[in-house]
């Protein structure tokens, strides 16, 4: 029972315990889940310690058989790639609970139980090193989120929840099929084994095979990301979800897709990934600009932020498929950034919704007069979101763009357009909602941020500045893990190059002596 | 002796089976079914499946069929009124059924020509110990899963039987 298992099991235990707590004692339930999730967060911080000492490698590994046939193992562990996403999950769960303190007043017990279950699933996704285990966690995440949207959402919640569910399900079914195919081929679900087999050339696919497998995986992940044009579930889901649901969805759940692409698509199917990269990058670029343009004209705050997510996550994809250190580092960093800043944005929008019960931008205006601190926090978050230097998003965007610049400056230029546009829509939002004369019907409702809300916001603000200024905390471990993945994603490619080199070398050698029997 | 027992109980089983189908009153059908089950239990014994024979009686005859009888009594279900069967079923079902039986019998004979004759006591593997050992080692997971299934079934039955629905 190492620390990771504890961190993984505690939310599940919390889920079960919450279920048996008395139904009508809402404050007890809230307090319990808050304290538990905070404890998990503190424990999860302990997971980071090896990364400060030695940087890279896999830590807290547990590898025991789970099911004999087919051979499925309970194989979990963290490396530099997953550790921060685990922390992100554990951090945002208490924050979400805190945010929902007053807002959720029906079915309190179930809500908190689902939050903890969601946390369990999310952590699981990030630490699972067995494909099947991963799939199980992947689906575990789906259920609580479905209910969070479907039960505690707004007017069109059922539509949104079903749309969300169907979209994600469609992808994951394909992924499952691909996993089973992989299993039949390699006789293992274990990720490290698979990668090892591929690295050593023991497991190889024909081009078509690999392409299809890659696409099956990628589609599942791309829907989750969501990559243009698979994104239309996102705005609906966000608009209808409760605040906590939006936070978790945007901040962590979308990372499941991007993380999985980095984790699985690149090392397992290197050639296919590289072959597809240009097309995927084109989609990502379209997504960046498109998401930003559509965000520009949204009348609804949550929708605006949702479309901005489409744009931001395009950067992550762009960085990932640049296939170089800077791009990949930036992509992973951007995942964290997006989690922090968009999570904070949704949280703040949620605060405003709690006060006025509207999400339409036109119903706001001049909020900063009655609520100066709220608007200050919102402004900082906005600035983080548009990638102002010294705040977190800048680092990610810079690295992604730098990474893509190594490949093609045209990509960079198009993606940089997204940065400009992000300033447009976010500042326009800020101006419309916060500046100017205070809207008449806001008076009396629009209180300033209260200590509870501040407590939820402060950690995110601190992280924004921290991640923007002192990247040493996060970047080295991410870099180390990415370097490994990058190495793995070269598997087939390098061999090809080597083979060519050998061939030319052999030709050179054999030129004088004539034909030699082809030994290999 | 084995042959006699087989023939007798096979005939009882088939007879009860036919009765099940042709009787119009559900109680008669249910009792016929119990007859089939009892005969099958004896046949299981002949095949060396003593535990299964008893389980057949306890679970099927003792529990499931009691439930059926119970429900039939509770609903006080009467005789079927009219023997309405759609043309499609008749036109499709009867030949299909006949073909099915013919095919199966033919295939059994054809594909398993040299099978041994059944002797009572030739197979001693069906003891409680053997089954218990297998069930709780190799088939532990399915066993647990079935327990969950039963739990769910209970819940489902309770929910369904509530008055509100």
């Amino acid at each position, binding site marked *: 029972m190492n620390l990771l298992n504890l961190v993984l099991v505690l939310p599940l235990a919390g889920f079960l315990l919450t279920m048996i707590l008395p139904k009508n004692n809402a404050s007890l339930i809230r307090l319990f889940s808050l304290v538990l999730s905070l404890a998990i967060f503190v424990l999860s911080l302990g997971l980071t310690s090896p990364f400060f000492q030695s940087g890279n490698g896999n830590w807290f590994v547990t590898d025991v058989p789970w099911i004999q046939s087919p051979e499925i193992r309970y194989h979990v562990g963290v490396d530099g790639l997953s550790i921060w996403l685990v922390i992100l999950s554990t951090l945002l769960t208490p924050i979400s609970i805190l945010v929902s303190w007053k807002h959720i007043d029906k079915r309190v017990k179930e809500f908190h139980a689902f939050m903890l279950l969601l946390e369990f699933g999310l952590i699981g996704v990030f630490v699972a090193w067995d494909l099947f285990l991963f799939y199980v966690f992947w689906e575990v995440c789906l259920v609580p989120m479905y209910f969070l949207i479907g039960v505690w959402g707004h007017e069109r919640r059922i539509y949104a929840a079903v*749309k969300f569910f169907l*979209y994600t399900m469609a992808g994951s079914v394909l992924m499952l099929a691909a996993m089973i195919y992989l299993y039949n081929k390699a006789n293992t679900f274990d990720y490290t084994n698979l990668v090892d087999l591929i690295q050593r050339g023991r497991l190889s696919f024909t081009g078509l095979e690999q392409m299809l497998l890659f696409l099956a995986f990628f589609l599942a992940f791309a829907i989750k990301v969501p990559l243009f*044009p698979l*994104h*239309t579930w996102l705005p609906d889901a966000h608009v209808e979800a409760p605040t906590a649901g939006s936070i978790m969805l945007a901040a962590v759940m979308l990372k499941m897709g991007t993380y999985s692409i980095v984790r699985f698509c690149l090392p397992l199917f290197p050639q296919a990934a590289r072959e597809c990269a240009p097309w995927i990058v084109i989609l990502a670029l379209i997504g960046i600009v*498109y998401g930003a*343009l*559509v965000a*520009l*004209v*949204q009348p609804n705050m949550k929708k605006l932020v949702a479309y901005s997510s489409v744009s931001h996550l395009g950067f992550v994809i762009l960085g990932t498929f640049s296939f*170089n*250190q*800077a791009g990949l*580092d930036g992509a992973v960093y951007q995942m964290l950034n997006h989690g922090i800043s968009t999570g904070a944005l949704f949280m703040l929008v949620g605060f405003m919704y709690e006060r006025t019960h509207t999400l339409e931008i036109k119903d706001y205006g001049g909020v*900063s007069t009655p609520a100066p601190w709220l608007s200050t926090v919102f402004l900082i978050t906005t*600035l983080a979101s548009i990638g*102002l*230097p*010294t705040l977190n998003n*800048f*680092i990610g965007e*810079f*690295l992604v*763009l*730098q990474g893509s*610049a190594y490949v093609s*400056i045209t990509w*960079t230029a198009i993606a*940089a*357009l997204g*940065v*400009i546009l992000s*300033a*447009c829509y976010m*500042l326009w939002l800020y*101006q419309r909602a916060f*500046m*100017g*004369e205070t809207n008449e019907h806001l008076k009396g409702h629009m209180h300033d941020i209260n200590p509870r809300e501040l407590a939820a916001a402060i950690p995110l603000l601190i992280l924004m500045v921290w991640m923007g*200024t*002192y*990247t*040493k905390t996060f*970047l080295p471990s991410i*870099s180390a893990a990415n370097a490994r993945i990058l190495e793995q994603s070269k598997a087939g490619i390098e061999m090809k190059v080597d083979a060519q080199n050998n061939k030319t070398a052999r030709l050179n050698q054999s030129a004088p002596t004539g034909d030699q029997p082809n030994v290999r | 002796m084995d042959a006699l027992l087989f023939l007798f109980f096979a005939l009882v089983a088939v007879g009860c089976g036919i009765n099940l189908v042709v009787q119009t009153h559900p109680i008669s059908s249910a009792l016929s079914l119990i007859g089939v089950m009892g005969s099958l239990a004896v046949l299981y014994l002949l095949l060396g499946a003593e535990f299964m024979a008893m389980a057949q009686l306890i679970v099927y005859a003792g529990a499931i069929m009691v439930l059926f009888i119970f429900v039939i009594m509770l609903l006080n279900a009467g005789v079927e009124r009219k023997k309405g069967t*759609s043309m*499609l*079923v008749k036109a*499709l*079902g009867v030949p*299909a059924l006949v*073909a*099915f039986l013919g*095919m*199966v019998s*033919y*295939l059994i004979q*054809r*594909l398993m020509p040299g099978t041994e004759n059944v002797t009572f006591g030739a197979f001693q593997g069906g003891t409680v110990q053997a089954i218990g050992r297998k069930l709780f080692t190799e088939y532990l997971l399915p066993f647990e899963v079935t327990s969950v299934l039963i739990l769910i079934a209970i819940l489902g039955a309770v929910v369904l039987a509530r008055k509100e629905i």
Partner: protein
Amino acid sequence: MNDQQLWLIPALPLAGFLINGLFGKKFPNILVSIIAVASVLGSFAWVLKTLGALGDLEHAHVEHYLTWIQSGPVNIGVDLAVDRLTAVMLLVVTGIGSLIHIYAVGYMSHEGGYYRFFAYLNLFMFFMLTLVMGANFLLLFVGWEGVGLCSYLLIGFYILKKSAGDAAKKAFVVNRVGDFGFSLAMFLIMVQFGSLDFQKVFEAVKPLPVDQTPGILTAIALLLFVGAAGKSAQVPLYVWLPDAMEGPTPVSALIHAATMVTAGVYMTARAAVIFQHSPLAMDVVATVGLITAVMAATIGLTQYDIKKVFAYSTVSQLGYMFIACGVGAFSAGIYHVVTHAFFKALLFLGAGSVIHALSGEQDLRHMGGLAKKIPITFAVLACAWVAIAGVPPFAGFFSKDEILLAAHHHAPWMYWVGVITAGMTAFYVSRAMFMCFFGSYRGHHHPHESPFVMWGPLAVLAVLSLAGGWYFKVPHYLEPVFPVAEGHHDETLVYISVAAGVIGIGLAALMYLIKPGLPDTISGALGPIYKLVYNKYFVDEVYDATIVNPMVAGSRGVLWRIFDAGIIDGIVNGTAVVARTVGGGLRLLQSGNIRSYAAWVTLGCVVVLLALGVMSGGVK
């Protein structure tokens, strides 16, 4: 290496910002102003101390603090550096910054959000100093974006005014367009040279051959210039600066006249090595500078808002600086930056004093005859007036002269255009002065002189405007950094340019003092041209019509409503519809009668059995 503690210079204002920003609401105004002013003054003092300690600064003094970003080949440190160029900028920024802080104590005393204003101002100082001192492009970029942010915050300081918000957003977005170019240039530099450190990059560039045909260096230079154009309000990105006058006047003085807007010039000068390797880029810089100078000057001729006049003047002067850069006289450009900082800050602060005296009135048509009512203000403004008009031996004369000479050396026609512009400059400043201080008072307020905290800094600036150009020989000081502009000092050219300035003043005097009816006659005579100029060439309207509106409408109409909701969701829903239709067809088979299903199933069993039998050889 880190013996000079350079980090203190930006850190002091940052501390001021943090203290005022977090707790300022609870502080009395006096404490807020003490903290703010003291932090900037401390910074200024530290600059002086550092420069004193570093001596003649033949080489750049670099201090490395920590590695900021380390990812594969990308290695960026938080490095601060001081060389002579930086030293000049540091002195200007902290010196003028201090003065304006002091001025603002008086100016803002009656405004709400006092602490907020000073917090922002301190934050601006932090970023500006980072910009100036950063030893690599990314750190420069940090400051670059940061000052943009502060500019945004300060322009939008009057949050209740919608126009202020619009202007703030416009400033930020337009700056972002410039930043887009800058960042692309940065990426290219990184790709090309593997580093963003000034020293490394420039070392790598120096041995390269000059890009005769457009190549990568040209691309980098042009992209950098896009950034500079955005920040320094050059055509076509100048549109934000006049609107930025929505902010409080000290802001206009500090950010939109003296320091921030010159960041583009500083950056161009900093990257001089790159620019020098690309003649095409140099030409572009010079040409754009020239166009900007002329265009803004013409607009300035017709404006009535006193701050707008000075704003266009700023744009125009910035154009001048870029001419200098474009013709290779970087030191002249920086020289003009310095002198311009003196007199333009003075002009704005003076204008602010006037506005303050008139309780917020900005329209020149409602002023007049104020020379007697607010004599001190008039006096200091007059100093600025002569400085900007290029009257020797005041500040503007020297720097403008340097630029024009260099331009003449590069291409005589540029010189002539520059001279005409200088004339126009003299004209519109004089016009403003005459309309404001001479004649009879046309307003309704009761003017009152500003307090000492306001005119004290003005006096200092006035001295600098008068003597600064003569006293600070910036080009000479910058010789180790930039090669001295070639060419001899042609006295004739100097006379011509001085004459242009004098003619401008004379014309203004003619039209606004001697024959007040003349301007209307002329504008009537010019008709459409006047209208065109008066409406700033309709640039904003053109931008709105060609870029902003199509983008918004297209996004809303096409992308969101049609593409997103229509096509993509349509495809998704369409799949459902197809499934439903197919299902509807298959439904006919589903009679709803379980027994017919069972019959089908039985049939299926038979088929399967048959197939199994055939496969296993059971059926022959």
